[in-house]
C-alpha cells in the first residue's frame, strides 16, 4: 500500500466516522428540538387555562439533561479521535484509544445489528504507536464483519497484557469476508505492531501484538 493509498483510505475512514457522528448528533438535536416543541405546546395550553403538571415539567427537564449528556459524550469521543492525527508516533493509552474507537464504531455496527463488546485486562496500558493508523487498522478488521444479519450479534474486541507483550484481539464473525492481508500487514507495520490470526474458544480472532 503506497503512501497515497494510505492517505486516500485514511480520508475515507475519517469521512465515515464524521458522517456517523454527525448523524448521531443530529438525532440528539432532533430530540432536544422536539422536547422544546413539547414545552411550547404545554405553555400554549397553560395560556388557555390548562395548568401544566409539575411532574410533566420535571420529565421534560430530565429528557433534556439525558440528551445533553449524550451529546457531550459523542463530542468528546469525536474530539479524542480527531486528535489521534496530531503526531505520527507517540505513547498512548491503548485501552482508552480502543474503548473510544469501539464506542465510535458502535453506531455503524448497530446498523448491521451488531453489538461491539470490548473488554480490557487493565484500565491503562501505554504503548508506542501511530494512533490514527492503529484506528484505521482496527476499522479494516471490524468493518469486514459489518454484514447485515437477521439476528443480533456480538463482536468481541479484547486487550490482554502479559509481562512482555500487549495483544489486541478482534473477533472475525463467521460470515465475514477476510480483509486483504497485505493491507493489514502494511498498516500493522506502520502502527508498530505485528499481525496474525488465531483461534480462541472456537472463535477466529485477528491478533495485533505490541
Amino acid at each position: 500500500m503506497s503512501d497515497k493509498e494510505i492517505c486516500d483510505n485514511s480520508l475515507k475512514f475519517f469521512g465515515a466516522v464524521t458522517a456517523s457522528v454527525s448523524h448521531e448528533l443530529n438525532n440528539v438535536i432532533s430530540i432536544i428540538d422536539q422536547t422544546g416543541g413539547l414545552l411550547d405546546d404545554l405553555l400554549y395550553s397553560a395560556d388557555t387555562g390548562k395548568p401544566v403538571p409539575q411532574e410533566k415539567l420535571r420529565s421534560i427537564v430530565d429528557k433534556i439533561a439525558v440528551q445533553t449528556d449524550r451529546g457531550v459524550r459523542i463530542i468528546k469521543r469525536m474530539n479524542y479521535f480527531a486528535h489521534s492525527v496530531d503526531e505520527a508516533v507517540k505513547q498512548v493509552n491503548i485501552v482508552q484509544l480502543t474503548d473510544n474507537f469501539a464506542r465510535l464504531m458502535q453506531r455503524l455496527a448497530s446498523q448491521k445489528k451488531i453489538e461491539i463488546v470490548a473488554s480490557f485486562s487493565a484500565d491503562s496500558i501505554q504503548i508506542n504507536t501511530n494512533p490514527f493508523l492503529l484506528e484505521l487498522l482496527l476499522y479494516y478488521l471490524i468493518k469486514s464483519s459489518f454484514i447485515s444479519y437477521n439476528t443480533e450479534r456480538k463482536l468481541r474486541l479484547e486487550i490482554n497484557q502479559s509481562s512482555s507483550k500487549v495483544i489486541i484481539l478482534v473477533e472475525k464473525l463467521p460470515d465475514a469476508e477476510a480483509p486483504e492481508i497485505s493491507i493489514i500487514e502494511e498498516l500493522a507495520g506502520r502502527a508498530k505492531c505485528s499481525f496474525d490470526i488465531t483461534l480462541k474458544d472456537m472463535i477466529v480472532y485477528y491478533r495485533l501484538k505490541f
Partner: protein
Amino acid sequence: MAQERVLLVDDEKEFTELLAERMRSREMDVDTAESGAEAMVKVCKKYYDAIILDLAMPGMDGIETLGQILGKNPDQQVILLTGHATVPQSVAAMKLGAVEFLEKPAKIDKLIELVRTAQVKKADLFQKRMEESIEKVKTKRGW
C-alpha cells in the same frame, strides 16, 4: 375530515415518543415502530393515512422498508424524515415512491401539513381505484 392515522417509524425511541405525543395532542391517531420489521407488522394490521419513516435503521433499513410498504400497498403515502441522507439515498427513495423527503430536525407544523395532504391524496386515490373497478365491471358486463 376524519382523524388522521399516522405511523412513525424510527429507531430513536425517544424521538418517536415525543413526536407522537405532540401529534396526539393535535387530535391525530398515532402509532410508533422502532424498526422496519415492526412497521410491517403494524401496516398489515391497520390502515394508515401516512407513514413517517426514517432511512437509517438497524436491520431492515428505510429504503428496504419503503419498498416493502409500497409493494403491499402502492397508494400508501410515505414521508421520509431522516438525518443526513446522501443524494443516492434520496433519489432511490423518491424513485421507489416516497411522497416527500424531510430532514431532521423538522418542524411539527410542516409535518402536520404533509400528513393532512397525504390523507387527502390517499382518499382521492382510493376514490379513483373504486371508480376504475366499477368501470371495469361495467365494461365486462356490457352495462
